[in-house]
């Protein structure tokens, strides 16, 4: 088990290094000229030379990479070429919003998918199974931006629940005082959660559909297994058999899917964020691409990539807890 994790950890570090190189050099391939977007009409050769020297862009690519990496390893992602704002601060403001939306949407998705998949798998091809299967198949083919439009219509316009905004909960540096003032705590958290309803639902529907379908088919297969008959012959209730005997061996594929899906949401949730004007990582990335703010793009891509890898590593870890056969070598 330990050997397995050390191996995985080494691989993890290797992948992160590879990604840092990839994200650095890919940016160099982007068309456009940084000098134009910063200097505008003042883009004379002399000014440009002076600017590049100031930003360190006159050095060789390898040296630029090593300088950047050196700072990243010390926890400094650098400053925006254009606004001069620390990238740590920009990401520090946006990332928590992404994480909250993802966290909430995954809770909703799992909380719906697991019991419904169990109910459907109990009687494969029964009425409930066919209904839920048809419904989720339909939902699977609806893109999230369509779902957002309907959610805004129903929740924000019809039910008058505020539809956008990050809420104040995720402004990290200031939230420490929340815990000293209980009344304020609940007001703020309530306000924050209300603003999370639409983005959470929008992202959770996509996840729910996938989780439901994966878990349902795995449960149906597991329930055919001989060890389920064996568990029945012990006189256990069908509820206990479902949770204690069928669920765990059926959740390996579910976890794998969740890992990929959550990774995708970190960067891919931006369509929903964009539509709802939520200032998450996606928004930051789009803004910096438009401005050709290379260092911001590069550092954001790197942070997203690391987050995706860390999530998948965590999922792999949970999977080995669920099915100990996987880590045995």
């Amino acid at each position: 088990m330990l050997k397995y994790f050390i191996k995985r950890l080494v691989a993890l570090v290797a992948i992160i290094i590879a990604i840092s190189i990839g994200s650095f050099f890919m940016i160099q391939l982007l068309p456009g000229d940084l000098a134009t977007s910063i200097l505008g009409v003042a883009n004379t050769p002399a000014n440009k030379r002076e600017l590049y020297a100031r930003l360190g862009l006159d050095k060789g690519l390898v040296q630029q990479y090593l300088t950047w990496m050196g700072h990243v390893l010390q926890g400094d992602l650098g400053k925006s070429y254009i606004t001069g704002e620390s990238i740590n601060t920009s990401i520090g403001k946006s990332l928590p919003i992404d994480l909250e939306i993802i966290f909430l949407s995954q809770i909703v998705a799992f909380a719906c998918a697991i019991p419904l998949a169990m109910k459907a798998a109990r009687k494969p091809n029964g009425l409930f199974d066919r209904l839920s299967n048809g419904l989720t198949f339909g939902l699977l083919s609806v893109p999230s931006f369509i779902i957002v439009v309907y959610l805004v219509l129903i929740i924000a316009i019809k039910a008058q629940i505020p539809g956008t905004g990050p809420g104040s909960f995720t402004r990290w540096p200031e939230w420490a005082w929340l815990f000293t003032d209980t009344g304020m705590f609940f007001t703020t958290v309530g306000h924050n959660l209300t603003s999370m309803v639409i983005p959470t639902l929008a992202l959770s529907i996509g996840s729910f559909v996938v989780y439901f379908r994966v878990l349902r088919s795995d449960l149906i297969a597991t329930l055919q297994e001989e060890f389920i008959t064996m568990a029945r012959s012990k006189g256990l209730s069908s509820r206990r058999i479902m949770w204690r005997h069928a669920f765990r061996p059926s959740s390996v594929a579910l976890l794998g899917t969740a890992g990929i899906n959550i990774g995708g949401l970190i960067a891919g949730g931006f369509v929903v964020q964009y539509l709802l004007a939520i200032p998450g990582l996606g928004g930051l990335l789009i803004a910096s691409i438009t401005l050709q703010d290379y260092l911001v793009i590069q550092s954001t891509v790197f942070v997203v990539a690391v987050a995706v890898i860390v999530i998948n590593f965590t999922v792999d870890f949970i999977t080995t807890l669920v099915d100990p056969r996987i880590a045995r070598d």
Partner: protein
Amino acid sequence: MSTETNQNNNPDEDFLVVENLTTTFNTARGPLPAVGGVSFRLGHNETLGVVGESGSGKTVLSRTIMGLQPRTNVEVGGSVRFDGHEIVGATEAELREIWGTKVAMIFQDPMTSLNPVTKIGKQIGESLHVRLGMSKDEAKARAIELLTLVGIPSPEERYEAYPTQLSGGMRQRVMIAIALACNPSLLLADEPTTGLDVTIQAQILNLLDELQMKLQMSVILVTHDLGVVATRTDRIIVMYAGRVVEMGRTKDVFKDHRMPYTRALLESTPRVSNPSHTRLKTIPGRPPNLLKLAEGCAFAPRCSRATEKCSQERPNLEPTGTDGHYFACWNPLDNQSAPVSSSTGSTKEFGEDNVRS
């Protein structure tokens, strides 16, 4: 367990009464009668062997006796009375009351019948905790005792093992421990040694023998291997195409079998007295398609003694005259006048392979 005393001590044969039991699967291609009218009785502490080829309905029979067959697309008829409970027609909730605690099953394949992601100790302790209401600690202590009982070395360590970390024989021992956890009075062993190699087979069967003595259970031993039942059962049922074709006390069936199918099975089992490299006889043909069962005796197409009558009319079970020995055949063998081979009919011939010294 094949001793006469067992039977004489327990003259009541009404512990388990199976009457005209039928199990029919509704398949897309029509009804499939997997068990077609089986009747027998079993007394306390008695051991019954159920023998037949693959597909003869042995496994379905044992699952139907327990009420464990799937609930959808199955029709069960007849009656199974077990210690005052009627199994046929009982709801799953009613059956759950007796499953594990009164009747338990050992499954055929210890590779697939244990939960792969749960520690074996937990799997044994689960019924103790859930069914007998033991605390987690008591259940653990008892599970370790059970592991010792079934002969697993260093049981405290093995308690923490997952099924994949054990050998086939060990897993089957774990399975036996699970089945015996709540002291059932009837144990159904469905081909308990088929997946194991021969030396382990003998160990497992001897263990079952021992435990039956110790725990006072009735046992139904389902197998395709006559060698397995020869020395370990009081009575035998021979099944073919879902029906009983011969039944009786083990030594009567071995010595004085009347049904050609029984002889064919006996002749296709390896024996100690055969010189080495003797070719085993095989039964020509294949078991019939149960979806298209003919009118007459199901074995007729493969039977060398078949006459026209055999393919037209199904023979019923007739008594041989010996107590409790029945057969279903129009042209029964007469072993007095036409002995097959001097050794065919002796249970000893089969026993010596299996009995540990």
